[in-house]
């Protein structure tokens, strides 16, 4: 069986392919690539498990997700692909429903498990605020699936995929991207961090986060936050938002500071190996979702903790 793969950039496409190959070891993966294709990228695709790369003009990306959906629909029809895999990023979730509607197929996104059965694709995803897991059967072909990427691309040992040049003559309603306002903070890759310190509404003002920065520096940790901190208050950039509509993280340790633990946040930290929470309220939801629930004042504990760690780690 052939699976058509598309994600927002080559790294994401490769990781998506590698993740899917883990679930579907016997299938062929065709990656849709836009624009120039460097030997490095081709090798990356090969190591991820792709057998073919379909290259189209980068022009289609500039016209927005509707154009990508139309392009994928056209290629799926031409190549007879009955399965199309997308990332479950925000961009992927703009493309998926349009594509499924255009192809009149079945669709699910944010899938955390994938299995081909005789009656369709069985997938699992979190619903009802993340506290529940739904097992779904995608019956109608073609199957459009947004998958959470978890795998990394192997370091070596890949064959070089075939490259097929394709021209696409489709039309789609146009959206013009006027400007991208990137946050001032440097890019943060929370999904790959081993230690994350999460901050929530327990902090009274933005300036107070300096004590968290000090702590994170000593720990070599990344800083994440709950939705109010990045959304309403804008104390942190959106790429640090952990939760249902933000990042899903899987660190070895998650230290939740002043986070009450709304279900939308909990879904984002569920895969953490160890969860430690500090909160003044012993009944805050986060406390029963933690390995260690420290009942106390973050304003008193954080500076003391930072100092102790600094002494014991011999760090400045």
């Amino acid at each position, binding site marked *: 069986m052939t699976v058509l793969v598309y994600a927002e950039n080559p790294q994401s496409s490769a990781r998506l392919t590698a993740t899917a190959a883990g679930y579907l070891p016997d299938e062929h993966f065709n990656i849709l690539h836009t624009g120039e294709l460097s030997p490095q990228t081709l090798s990356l695709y090969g190591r991820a498990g792709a057998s073919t790369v379909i290259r189209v003009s980068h022009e289609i990306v500039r016209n927005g997700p509707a154009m990508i959906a139309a392009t994928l629909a056209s290629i799926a029809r031409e190549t007879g692909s009955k399965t199309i895999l997308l990332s479950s990023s925000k961009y992927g979730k703009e493309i998926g429903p349009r594509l499924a509607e255009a192809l009149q197929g079945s669709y699910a996104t944010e899938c955390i498990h994938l299995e081909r059965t005789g009656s369709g694709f069985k997938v699992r995803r979190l619903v009802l605020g993340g506290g529940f897991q739904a097992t779904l059967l995608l*019956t109608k072909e073609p199957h459009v699936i947004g998958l959470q990427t978890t795998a990394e691309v192997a370091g070596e040992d890949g064959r070089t995929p075939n490259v097929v040049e394709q021209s696409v003559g489709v039309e789609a309603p146009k959206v013009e991207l006027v400007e991208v306002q990137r946050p001032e903070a440097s890019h943060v890759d929370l999904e790959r961090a081993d230690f994350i310190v999460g901050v929530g509404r327990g902090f009274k003002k933005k300036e107070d986060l300096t004590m968290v920065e000090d702590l994170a520096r000593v720990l070599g940790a990344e800083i994440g936050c709950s939705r109010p901190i990045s959304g309403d208050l804008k104390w942190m950039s959106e790429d640090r938002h952990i939760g249902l509509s933000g990042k899903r993280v899987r660190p070895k340790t998650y230290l939740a500071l002043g986070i009450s633990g709304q279900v939308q946040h909990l879904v984002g930290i569920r895969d953490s190996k160890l969860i430690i929470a*500090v909160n003044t309220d012993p009944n805050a939801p986060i406390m029963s979702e933690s390995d260690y629930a420290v009942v106390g004042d973050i304003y008193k504990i954080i500076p003391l903790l930072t100092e102790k760690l600094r002494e014991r780690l011999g760090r400045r």
Partner: protein
Amino acid sequence: MPDIVVCVKQTVDIYQLKPHPETLEPQFSQAQSKISDFDLNALEEALRIREKHGGGKVIVVSAGPSINQLLIRETLAMGADEAHVISHPSLASADGYVTAKVLSKLIGKAGRWDLILCGEASLDNSDYQTGPRLAEIYKIPHLAYVSKLELSGQSIKAWRTMEDGIHISSCSIPAVVTVGLEINTPRLPSLLMIRAASKKPINEYKLSDLGLVEEDLKPHVQLLELKALKVERLRKKLEGTPEELATTLADIILGEGLVKR
């Protein structure tokens, strides 16, 4: 003066939802239903556009297994002019495909419109499907994850919250816009508005009124199982003076916390 359709979904209040201790299935009967959070943001934005641009209709559409009239009244009390709804038991198993199809038929009953506003995702399924599917059905542009919206003449400009920052995008209308909770704070209707809402029309339809048959409500995605996720945690409560707690925390972090040394 744009006419605006707002799609609202009646969902279970997930914050009240508890799993059954043995089967781990959600106990829906013990939780109340409400209008999905982001849909109220969509309605609020439609009302603000109407106020700013002097007129135009705000039309609410909703489809579900059993739509509660009182919840629809709430949207009218907030300021919507009219509502078009369908209740049908088969909609309990609707997927994104069925939902968009039925909503598009309701929208067909609503008359002319310039914009469709939806919440970016629903509280219960969090599928992110309805808006973009409607856009594909009408072959019109879609602006997603909108945290600020401006309308001028025949075009709209939106500030969209993406992973890498704010994307400012524009397109012509008609269009579909899906919004998150950052865009506004939905108003609470006054007693006067609640009273006025009792005179506003709620049009209820049967399947046949919409030119649909039972077969059209057959989803492409079936729910096989729904269970609470159980992650076992130690749940060890630690109390003491800040000094003691900081010491214990440092022990835990350096012991189990796997700090890179």
